[in-house]
């Protein structure tokens, strides 16, 4: 597995643990956590991140705003983002696509789906 640093963003500590454990099992051991969009932006200043996995509904700054903010910044406009959220209404998915999300998974997710979408996002 290539050296890859992943930023997992979710306001639920339980979900972050599950995502981190799922990533480790898939071979991605270098994972940084953030509790919301604002925290994620702060972590990006400190670490060189290769992929962001983010929830949508979060306090302070939600996932959609995080993605829009990143796409407006030169240094992060191409940073791959995978959204993992409970939101499954088509309009929301289209909104995420338009905001610049690279791929999208609805919770609850299976480990295989997460691994597959990560590989898709990194390949694309």
């Amino acid at each position, binding site marked *: 597995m290539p050296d890859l640093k992943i930023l997992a963003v979710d306001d639920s500590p339980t979900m972050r643990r599950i995502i981190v454990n799922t990533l480790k099992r898939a071979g991605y051991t270098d994972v940084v956590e953030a509790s919301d969009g604002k925290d994620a932006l702060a972590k990006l200043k400190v670490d060189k991140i290769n992929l962001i996995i983010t929830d949508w509904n979060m306090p302070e700054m939600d996932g959609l705003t995080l993605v829009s903010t990143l796409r407006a910044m030169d240094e992060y406009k191409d940073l791959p983002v995978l959204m993992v959220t409970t939101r499954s209404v088509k309009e929301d998915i289209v909104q995420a696509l*338009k905001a610049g999300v690279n791929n999208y998974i609805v919770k609850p997710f299976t480990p295989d789906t997460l691994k597959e979408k990560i590989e898709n996002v990194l390949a694309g």
Partner: protein
Amino acid sequence: MSDPQEFSGQIEEVIRGLAESINTMAERIKGLQNPLSESQEKVPRATKQLDKIAEQTEAVTHHMLDTIEQLTQREQDIRNGLRQIKTMAADGNCEKVQTMADALIEKTDRSSNDAFSIMNALQFQDITCQQMNHAAAMLEDIETKLLQIISVMHGEVEADAIDWNPGAGKDRVFDPHADMVGRKTPQEDIDSLFEGKEA
């Protein structure tokens, strides 16, 4: 033209009837105040209960995650040990030990997969929490409206002056459609959207 005295008697009767109606109405409104006040008190308690459930399921989930992490680490240690035994057995040509080691390795793999499935199922906690936040937000909205009704009934404020959508519960973060099983859009359709980049 009717007799003025008779007319005045009729008016008196109408006024008496009106006064009785008004008294009855006032009594009924007074009678409503207690249930309204009780409801207004119960809503914060219900909201606190929901918050408590969310906290406690989170605590239990973390405890389970701790155990699962320890379990999977132990499994890994066993697997590594068994691989060493297998190597030693191969060197000593001991087929039976190799076979036993293979069987044990398979068992630990299955055990590890089971533990991982349990961990994955704990995603329910995040979804349940959002559902409870949604319920709590609705209760807080009802609480605010009840307070406003009571203020109007006490004459503290006019009904017209009230903002009936003050945004109670809006500090809570949740997806109103969060559901463990009921997805609005299947993953295959989501994949098509992203592959075709259709909007």
